[in-house]
């Protein structure tokens, strides 16, 4: 089964790299999922990880039942127990399948907008088939209203496809960082395969073959496949466009290119060896260059393997083992309540989509501006509106406004991964770190901004804006864009801003 071409729009003249943005000159970009067949859209429309739209409304959780792994990646350290870091492969408490089921039902009852349960580690879920499938088997019986997902490095995938298809799992994520074993040897030092540890190119070749075979088998079964890739500058950055083409031609429906996270204190190969991650610009350029071939995912938060809540938030502390022990959950009552809430959210999303489409029609009538693109940061806690104080934002969503419309680009973290004290390394304050994280943005939209950050933001060339509180994000970004254009601020390219060639 081959899926239709996504984002298959002609390039926009000099903005050839911007093919990911909607073809029409409407005020807001089309929904990321609009080009998907109805059958797939139906499956992903309330999935926060697969639908940019849905991630403002629905929550997800991971249960850490899968500690073992069958490969080593250079961005991973298998000493996975850390409460203060937020990145894949990190968890606080390992759960048994029984504990995982209990925790899932407790979260589902208390966070009714939680629609998706994923198993993502901290090792490889399919290298722990008994623990992973026991969890899935019980959840598909006891909590049938929860969508089940699994992510894998792919090595054991071909052997697991049959079992996966039995468990109501309609989404699988495969991490594919390369399709060339020589590139692979720089990412994977070894795999465990047929009772042997196999190093170097030989190991990478087997892994790649298994990933591709697994991908093909899943597509043949009608299971949706998303592909994750870690962008590692100088290692696979040039290669990922090829990966995107290959996985798309085999039927993957979404490609998620994520930045490498590498710090010496993580004790990973890349961290200790000083391999850098990509800059936001490099990541965006690669996502844009892949988007002509493949639908790109840009809102991924690279969650912990035990994350709970909306993307970008972690409510895991509310559901630790000792806390869920004391919770009495009546799941059939919870399911009734969840159904009502899901319907209400769906209705709200549908009406917002309709509203967006109508607004887009109106904008089409307006004269088209001819400015350079501009990046803006937005503080939101969900629902697709600007509703968060500047100082409360742990992350910002980055939007680009241009004559072609408004499009979501990425998110940027406001606080450091280590979550340490207020000053870090060079004596920077949290505010300074946040302002640095917003580099390249020319405005920040939030519900309120305090006096001190206001001054410092202005000094950094980022216009603070609290005038659009509670307004839909795209509308507000468009309004600010128009104001900036009218004021002549977008006529020339300032030095500080990335050159758009």
């Amino acid at each position, binding site marked *: 089964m081959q899926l239709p071409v996504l984002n298959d729009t002609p390039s926009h003249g000099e903005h050839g790299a911007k093919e990911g943005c909607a073809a029409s000159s409407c005020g807001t970009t089309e929904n990321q999922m609009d080009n998907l067949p109805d059958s797939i859209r139906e499956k992903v429309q309330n999935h926060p990880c697969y639908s940019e739209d849905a991630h403002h409304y629905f929550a997800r959780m991971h249960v850490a039942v899968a500690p073992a792994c069958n490969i080593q990646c250079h961005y991973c350290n298998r000493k996975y127990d850390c409460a203060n870091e937020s990145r894949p492969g990190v968890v606080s408490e390992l759960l048994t399948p029984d504990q995982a089921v209990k925790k899932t039902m407790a979260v589902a009852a208390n966070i009714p907008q939680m629609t998706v349960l994923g198993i993502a580690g901290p090792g490889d879920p399919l290298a722990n088939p008994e623990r992973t499938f026991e969890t899935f088997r019980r959840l598909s019986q006891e909590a049938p209203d929860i969508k089940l997902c699994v992510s894998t490095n792919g090595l054991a995938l071909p052997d697991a496809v049959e079992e996966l298809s039995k468990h109501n799992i309609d989404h699988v994520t495969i991490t594919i960082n390369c399709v060339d074993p020589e590139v692979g040897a720089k990412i994977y030092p070894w795999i465990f395969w047929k009772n042997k540890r196999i190093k170097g190119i030989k190991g990478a070749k087997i892994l790649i073959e298994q990933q591709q075979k697994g991908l093909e088998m899943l597509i043949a079964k009608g299971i949706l496949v998303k592909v994750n890739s870690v962008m590692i500058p100088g290692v696979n950055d040039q290669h990922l466009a090829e990966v995107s083409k290959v996985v798309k031609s085999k039927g993957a429906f979404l490609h998620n290119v994520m930045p490498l996270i590498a710090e*010496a204190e993580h004790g990973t190969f890349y961290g200790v*060896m000083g391999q850098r991650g990509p800059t936001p610009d490099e990541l965006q350029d690669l996502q844009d260059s892949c988007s002509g071939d493949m639908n790109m995912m840009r809102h991924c938060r690279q969650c912990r393997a035990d994350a709970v809540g909306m993307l970008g938030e972690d409510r895991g502390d509310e559901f630790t083992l000792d806390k869920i022990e004391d919770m009495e959950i009546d799941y059939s009552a919870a399911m009734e309540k969840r159904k009502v809430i899901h319907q209400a959210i769906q209705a709200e999303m549908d009406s917002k989509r309709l509203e967006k489409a109508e607004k887009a029609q109106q904008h089409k009538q307006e004269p088209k501006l001819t400015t350079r693109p501009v990046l803006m940061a937005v503080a939101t806690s969900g629902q697709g509106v600007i509703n968060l104080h500047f100082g409360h934002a742990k992350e910002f969503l980055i939007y680009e406004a241009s004559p072609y419309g408004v499009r979501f680009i990425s998110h940027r973290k406001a606080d450091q991964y280590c979550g340490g004290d207020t000053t870090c390394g060079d004596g920077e304050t949290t505010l300074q770190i946040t302002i640095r994280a917003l580099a390249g943005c020319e405005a920040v939209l939030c519900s309120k901004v305090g006096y001190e950050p206001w001054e410092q933001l202005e000094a950094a060339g980022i216009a603070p804006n609290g005038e659009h509180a509670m307004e839909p994000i795209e509308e507000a970004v468009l309004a600010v864009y128009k104001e900036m254009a009218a004021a002549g601020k977008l006529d020339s390219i300032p030095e500080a801003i990335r050159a758009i060639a």
Partner: protein
Amino acid sequence: MAVKIIESCVNCFACEPACPSHAIYEAKPHFLVDAKKCTECEGDFPVFQCASICPIEGAILDSFGLAINPPGSLTGIPPEKMAKAMAELQSH
């Protein structure tokens, strides 16, 4: 004749199902090897199964007390480089 799992084990469960003699068991604070059951895979495999999947350098010792996976052998990080990075962290 038996291998030994020591305190650097991170309890990832990977070795337990790999053992052909069912000699490895979950324990606190880390997994252990039943020395009476361990055969060092003789007759089953040419290489130690536990040490072939174990991701932690130095966590499994052979019967001479030597690390089957010495520092640097699995991650590719030169031990002196790792020591330097950790020392820098400590000094902060």
